[in-house]
């Protein structure tokens, strides 16, 4: 009975991580805003910045991966492989999230020393949607850290902890 709830909990976590990663991808892809600033018109898309492109690609990979692992049977030998893959996917998630947050922070506050002006004042809806995508990415990351510990628990015998 305990094993069933554990397995169910793992499935729920992974499905939630899949939804979060997919939400991050969709939120960032659909963020596109055109603003006219006197005679200039500025179109802000996510593909202008390399960090956002990396964020979209990484979260797309993560959502596909978690969708596939959802269907892995319980007694399969691939679970040991899933532990290492979970670690690599978590590293991918943290790296993409921190890169996107670093660049978005420059876009929001600017960098006075380098002469970079913030762009969020001109395209507020774009900035809000990017913020939402980053929050979804953060949720996916937290869920994946739990899933990492969970996958180890799935592979390592519980007797190990009681020696």
């Amino acid at each position, binding site marked *: 009975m305990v094993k069933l709830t554990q397995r169910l909990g793992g499935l729920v976590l992974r499905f939630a991580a899949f939804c979060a990663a997919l939400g991050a991808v969709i939120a960032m892809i659909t963020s596109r805003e055109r603003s006219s600033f006197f005679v200039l018109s*500025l*179109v*802000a898309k996510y593909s*202008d*910045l*390399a*960090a956002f492109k*990396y964020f979209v690609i990484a979260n797309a990979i993560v959502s596909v991966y978690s969708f596939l692992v959802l269907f892995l049977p319980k007694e399969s030998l691939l679970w*040991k492989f899933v*532990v*290492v893959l979970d*670690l*690599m996917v*978590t*590293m991918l998630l*943290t*790296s*993409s*999230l*921190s*890169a*996107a*947050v*670093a*660049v978005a*922070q*420059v*876009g929001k506050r600017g*960098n006075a*020393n*380098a*002469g*970079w*002006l913030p*762009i969020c004042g001109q395209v507020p809806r774009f900035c809000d949607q990017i913020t939402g995508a980053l929050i979804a990415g953060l949720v996916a990351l937290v869920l994946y*850290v739990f899933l*990492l*510990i969970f996958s*180890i628990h799935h*592979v*390592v*015998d519980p*007797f*190990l*902890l*009681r*020696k």
Partner: protein
Amino acid sequence: MAGGKIVVAGGTTKSWKVLLGLRIFAFMATLAAAIVMSLNKETKTLVVATIGTLPIKATITAKFQHTPAFVFFVIANVMVSFHNLLMIALQIFIPKLEQKGLHLLSIAILDMLNATLVSAAANAAVFVAEVGKNGNKHAKWNKVCDRFATYCDHGAGAIIAAFAGVILMLLVSAVSISRLLFNSNKFSSTAPSATATDVP
């Protein structure tokens, strides 16, 4: 029980040596990245105007503290190198403690968390540095590297060292997880294992 006979004398097995070597390299790589980035500073004097025949100079400095991503980079690399130092000391001076299962599990989890931390720091720094090197036409952000070439070069060196640290920390995590799995297989099997123990 056959699982109770664990070799406790010294720590000269293969996985122990491999793990120690990897940790030493990871410690050196992350420490080098932290030190090089924290000493990254360049000052330039430019002439901004000329009043008559008297040039007016302005001094601009490029420091790593100007960019929050680089500050995070330095702090994260210091934390990961400190973690590696602690693990090296633990491995050399107290090899016998690693027989208990919870010890191995906590080492594996800590290694994984630090691997993700250094990966996050290196990636944040590299993307902000890419904006500084190439600029961004859409956001009208000018490039910085054409004026501060030494600053950019030192930063690039620190980021390369951090990426070497990322790969090494990934290998360290993999070896820690495999030690944990091997130890758990040894304890969970009821038949006495004929092969020599490998963990310590």
